[in-house]
């Protein structure tokens, strides 16, 4: 499995640090989207691993693990599509506390 991931990035300090063009390495992420969220989805024990939330997530942040599914909260925007698509109501939306 591979996907774009966070890399270190330092803002240009002087003119010569600026790139000559906007082309760059594919899948190069420098900022998280977690601050967009008002609610966070929590996958509960009711999950039957049907993978519908994984499939329908617009951001692709639900991923398979050895024991089931987990969520990449760095990039989840809290839209709640996973909660609505779940046939077992196994995903609960909780108010984001940002901690």
């Amino acid at each position: 499995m591979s996907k774009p991931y966070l890399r270190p990035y330092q803002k240009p300090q002087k003119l010569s640090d600026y790139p000559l063009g906007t082309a760059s390495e594919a899948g190069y992420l420098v900022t998280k989207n977690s601050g967009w969220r008002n609610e966070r989805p929590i996958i509960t024990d009711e999950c039957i691993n049907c993978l519908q939330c994984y499939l329908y997530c617009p951001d692709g942040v639900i991923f398979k693990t050895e024991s089931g599914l987990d969520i990449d909260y760095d990039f989840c925007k809290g839209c709640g599509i996973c909660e609505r698509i779940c046939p077992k109501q196994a995903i609960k939306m909780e108010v984001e506390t940002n901690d």
Partner: protein
Amino acid sequence: MRNQITAKTITDSEFFYGHKACAGCGGSLAVRIALKVLGEGAISVLPAGCMSAVGFNYPHLCFSNNSIISTFAGTASMLTGVEAGARAVGIKNFKAVGLAGDGGTADIGIQALSGAIDRNDDILYICYDNEAYMNTGIQKSGLTPFGAKTTTTPSGENIHGNLRPKKNLFEIVAAHDIPYAATASIGNLKDFMNKIEKASKIKGTAYIHVVAPCPIGWGIPVNETIEISQKMMDCGLWYLAEYENGQFKLNRNPSEFSSIKDYLLSQSRFKHLEDADIKILAAQRDAKWTTIRKNWNTAEEDL
């Protein structure tokens, strides 16, 4: 029966990740799923539009396959060049794929698309249709449906939103006698995934038109993007179909339609519609389905 792509069999890898699309964005789901089916060999071309705006924020680059932004009008012509170029330098196992919105396809990019189909270039063109120019703030496109309120088709006492019906781009494309064209919706990803898989194997031009609602532009809660796509198909305002070997085929033929009024009035872009307007839309729908059922192959088969 062919091996179908499902949530279990599709690759775990993500090729469109960390993007800045609004929460609940339908277009980003269409692009994400398309690239998961096509894999790392996809070379994607995106014109001006939401998906290029949210995917390329230098140095934050959300595509992990090779991707490039084209001119607004030139998605299909750049695909032609990408395909020829990749072939010329000996790259194997690639697929040049265009990911353009409804405005970039049905209005601004239609000439380039028509030309590419005419040349029968070996490319896949995917139009994600959110029924208006959402990236610039919800202006009417050629694919905005009758009655929809946008900033350029306002609703007031005299005019109730868009005056013109949605352009039938699927049949416009099919009229080129393209090797493969299909309609799809993010409300049915199984159908969409397998159409992409099928289209990727086509020699020549393939076109997929996928409805991908925009919660902001349609005026729905961000968690209802999938449900509204399903309602749109259930009430008959969208249909799943294919064009192949000169024949139209309906993939799903509902025995009865759900309420068109429920579908429309659950979105703020249609809130102003009166019963007379809704009757016009229902009559357009019924006329379309009569023609489809009369002329198309309606035996529901596997893709």
